[in-house]
């Protein structure tokens, strides 16, 4: 009785229930069938039912989660799913229960993600006899491949997505006002659109700190203030009672530099004057290179000066001989300073060279503003000729040229490649200026006064605009990098973390001598010429090992050291080292001559008949 009952029970419900629902990754009918078959085989085994049941449940859950993610991720997730599905469906490994694993092997990583983390190019393997070197190369390449794959995999799981703004049908995004955006987004993001009315001491220059948390404002008429702009907490506010030309945060939010009428000053975030640097006068623009701890300043007297802020020493002062320098940008990729001049040229400078590395004629009139993107690939310039030009600064070629009726006075590039250009009192933001010709701005906003400085906030969708009537913080969706690196620039770091970061950063301060056009040059093989190597060797040894010793004839007696005899002896050893070579070449030439003659003779013999004129030949 019991036995029959068992069979009765076993047959119906387990078999039916365990038919798996079709999954989105099971592209073909065939695979599904196969799975079914395997399951039926599994049925016969008395041990499996319980296990199988739990398995299918898990599978279902997993599938659901995956589906959700695919939906949210949009484009990226969908692509990945398709790619992965194609491969996984076919190869299924059997597990003990007889079912096949729908996800065999490790998950695939999309190609473009891998490309993002690629470093350098794979070289050729050294030939077999150098087996040691070959082994090292093979191992290190395998390690870098693994690192690349792991990085790409990690990149898929980053928590934040970038912002975006899309208009409705027939609606330009540039017509959407800031108020509409602020209403549409959540309350914290909406609070990032605000204005400060500071009409007394404007117009204002501004700078965001490296983490994007802190804002520094400097009014033309001496008003300097720094604040934590997200919490709107004022750190300090003062009036330096002098003209302020530019303001810049140094490596952390504890220090900032102010270029005042005569000298350069450094204050801490309480507003206490720490240094007045008298070596730096009439500074108009400043740039800070965070990894080098260098403050580069351009002055009205035409000097480009570098200040090492970690030790407080001037590194170098370069006289550019190009007049007043009020256009300056730095390339975040390689630390090179770009200066714009009134004759329409842009020059590139390092602290290691007194001459510009590159001089580019960019505009017909003077250059009004320069900006370089964070990968160091593109440079955007605007000039008095009302043009906005995009250059590829790897090859120094112009890519795009736009005509702006009012001309752009200030330019700024965001982390994700948005370009803001200020024309009069209007700030326009452009997208993808280098790849395709742009006809319309992405966003536009009218400030209350004429714009004096624009700056994108790092890691936020915010554009800070300093103008005659104060400061406006605009919301520009898609401007900031969504995922920051906690060890590099962490907006949420605590005081302790900041201190630790500061120590680490100071320890790995890059020396100014390492600034050059290609920052990765240090890792490449230096194929120095023989002459260079020889020179180095001479310098190391202190003498030239290959130098010829000057022949000094020995003093001989009995009239054999008369000047004539000495000259004769000198002649005997003169050009001794060349004699072998000369002898050899002479021999070679004779040999060739001989061969040629023999060949001619043979040819003549082969020709056979003698002509009538041969009798005159000797």
């Amino acid at each position, binding site marked *: 009785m019991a036995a029959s009952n068992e069979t009765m029970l076993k047959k119906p419900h387990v078999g039916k229930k365990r038919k798996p629902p079709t999954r989105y990754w099971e592209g073909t009918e065939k695979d599904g069938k196969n799975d079914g078959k395997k399951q039926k085989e599994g049925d016969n085994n008395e041990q499996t039912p319980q296990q199988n049941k739990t398995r299918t449940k898990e599978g279902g859950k997993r599938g659901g989660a995956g589906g959700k993610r695919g939906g949210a991720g949009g484009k990226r997730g969908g692509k990945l799913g398709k790619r992965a599905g194609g491969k996984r469906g076919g190869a299924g490994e059997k597990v003990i229960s007889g079912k096949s694993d729908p996800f065999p092997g490790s998950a695939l990583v999309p190609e473009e993600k891998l490309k*993002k*983390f690629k*470093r350098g190019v794979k070289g050729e393997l050294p030939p077999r006899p150098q087996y040691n070197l070959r082994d090292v190369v093979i191992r290190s390449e395998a390690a870098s491949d693994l690192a690349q794959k792991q*990085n790409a995999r*990690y*990149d898929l799981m*980053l*928590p*934040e997505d*970038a*912002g*975006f*703004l*899309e*208009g*409705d049908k027939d*609606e330009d995004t540039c017509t*959407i006002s800031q108020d*509409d*955006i602020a209403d*549409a*987004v*959540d309350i914290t*993001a909406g609070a*990032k659109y605000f204005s400060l009315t500071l009409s007394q001491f404007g117009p204002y220059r501004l700078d965001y700190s490296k983490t994007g948390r802190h804002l520094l404002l400097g009014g033309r008429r001496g008003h300097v203030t720094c604040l934590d702009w997200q919490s709107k907490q004022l750190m300090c506010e003062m009036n330096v009672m002098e003209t302020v030309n530019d303001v810049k945060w140094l490596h952390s939010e504890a220090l900032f530099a102010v270029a005042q009428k005569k000298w350069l000053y450094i204050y801490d975030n309480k507003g206490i004057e720490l240094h007045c640097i008298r070596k730096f006068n009439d500074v108009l623009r400043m740039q800070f290179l965070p*990894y080098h701890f260098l403050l580069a300043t351009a002055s009205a007297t035409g000097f480009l000066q570098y200040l090492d802020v970690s030790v407080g020493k001037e590194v170098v002062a370069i006289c550019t001989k190009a007049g007043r320098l009020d256009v300056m940008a730095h390339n975040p*990729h*390689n*630390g090179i300073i770009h200066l714009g001049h009134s004759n329409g040229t842009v020059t590139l400078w390092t602290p290691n060279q007194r001459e510009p590395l590159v001089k580019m004629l960019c505009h017909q009139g003077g250059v009004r503003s320069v900006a370089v993107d*964070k*990968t*160091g690939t593109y440079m955007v310039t605007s000039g008095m000729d009302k043009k906005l030009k995009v250059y590829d600064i790897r090859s120094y070629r112009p890519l795009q040229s736009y005509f702006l009726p009012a001309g752009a006075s200030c330019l700024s590039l965001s982390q994700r490649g948005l370009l803001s250009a200020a024309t009069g009192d209007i700030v326009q933001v452009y997208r993808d200026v280098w790849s395709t010709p742009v006809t319309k701005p992405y966003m536009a906003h009218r400030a209350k006064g004429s714009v004096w400085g624009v700056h994108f906030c790092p*890691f*936020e*969708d915010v554009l800070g605009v300093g103008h005659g009537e104060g400061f406006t913080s605009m*919301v520009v*969706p898609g401007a*900031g*990098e969504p*995922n*920051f*690196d*906690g*060890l*590099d620039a*962490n907006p*949420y770091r*605590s005081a*302790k*973390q900041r201190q630790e970061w500061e120590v680490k950063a100071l*320890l*790995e*301060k*890059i020396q100014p001598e*390492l600034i050059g056009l290609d*920052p*990765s*040059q*240090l*890792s490449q093989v230096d194929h120095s010429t023989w002459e260079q190597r020889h020179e180095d060797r001479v310098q190391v040894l202190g003498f030239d090992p290959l130098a010829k010793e000057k022949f000094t004839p020995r003093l001989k007696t009995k009239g054999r050291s008369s000047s004539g005899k000495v000259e004769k002896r000198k002649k005997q050893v003169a050009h001794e080292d060349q004699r072998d070579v000369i002898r050899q070449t002479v021999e070679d030439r004779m040999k060739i001559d001989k061969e040629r003659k023999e060949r001619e003779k043979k040819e003549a013999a082969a020709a056979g008949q003698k002509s009538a004129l041969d009798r005159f030949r000797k």
Partner: protein
Amino acid sequence: MKVKVLSRNPDDYVRETKLDIQRVPRNYDPSLHPFEVPREYTRALNATKLERVFAKPFLASLDGHRDGVNCMAKHPKSLSTMLSGSCDGELKVWNLTKRECVRTLQAHEGFVRGMVVSFCGTSFFTVGDDKTIKQWKMETPGYGEEEEPLNTILGKSVFTSIDHHQKEGVFVTCGQQVDIWDEQRSNPIRSFSWGVDSFNCVRFNPVETELLASCASDRSIVLYDMREATPLKKVIMNMRSNTLCWNPMEAYNFTCSNEDYNLYTFDMRYLDKPVTVHMDHVSAVLDVDYSPTGKEFVSASFDKTIRIFPKDSGHSREVYHTKRMQHVISIKWSSDNKYILSASDEMNIRLWKANAAEKLGLLAPREKSAVNYSQKLKEKFQHHPQIRRISRHRHLPKSIYSQSKELRVMKEARRRKERNVRKHSKPGSMPVVTEKEKHVVTVVK
């Protein structure tokens, strides 16, 4: 209008309570980490500098002998035990963790010439100037018991060196001839001699355990097979070899320390030319010992220094010296690959770190990964001139510095002279002899 603006929830990025560790979200995007190579270079430079700052290799000095220390022996089973024998016949057993002597015994009249611990670690053998071989128990005798050898064999002549078989109760001594002994018998089971009257070192091969090699005073190195009645072959060099040591990992290679200031690594199969000539000492090399990994060896010299050589490099990677250390007579590399023991003339045994800048003791995981990381960086940038200069720099005593300079000048002069002679003699009559070939006279089979 569809809009999304970055709006992070601070709770995702800030720790909840003070007891938690800080959250550190990472993004490995290369464009967020500019100056990758210069920063790594700077780190490598710092790591190299710190390595030189922390290079303090000297650990301890074990004193207690009343005469120069002539020989040492490692214990095969216990890392902390080490034996040393001095020129007055005294033998001391040391505990290296406590850095103290645990047992002293008068082993011989005159020098203790050699000693070895048997492979099981229960007893050890000593040979001395009094023509005896003595076997001792490893254990300290109990209260009231006398220090007496288990076994004493009186030989016909002075024994100069002893080594034990790796697996069997067989040991080998040398003196006027090379004798192979069974632990149970009082007569040698086999004796080898090949036209010389004095050998100064004999060593069993650690892998091919029936093979052994000896250095003789007629400038030769002789190879034997224990199972055969006659020696296998010998190589005669320009000057005498003092000791030799087999590479424990590539046991077909052995390195011998020579009187001509050099060490030579030979391949047992091709004796006509050494595989590598290791130069840098400025006086006779007295002893050599391999690291248990077989990648490096350490040599002791009459010039009062110890040098560590990579096995396939012609020059040393490290030199140790102190003001007080005199001629170093015996050297051992500890079996855990971490320490070096040197015994010198002025009655002291010194304990050194094998890696001068290594931190001793347990490392925290983060510490360990930091060490590995900086090691890798140093390796990556090792050829950059600045880094190479710092990592190669060693301070030498003035006498050794000037002596090595003098040797270099002499060598250069000899080379120049040879070149000039070649230039002025009939082409082909002065063949080029490489440095490796120079030091071997002949191979006899």
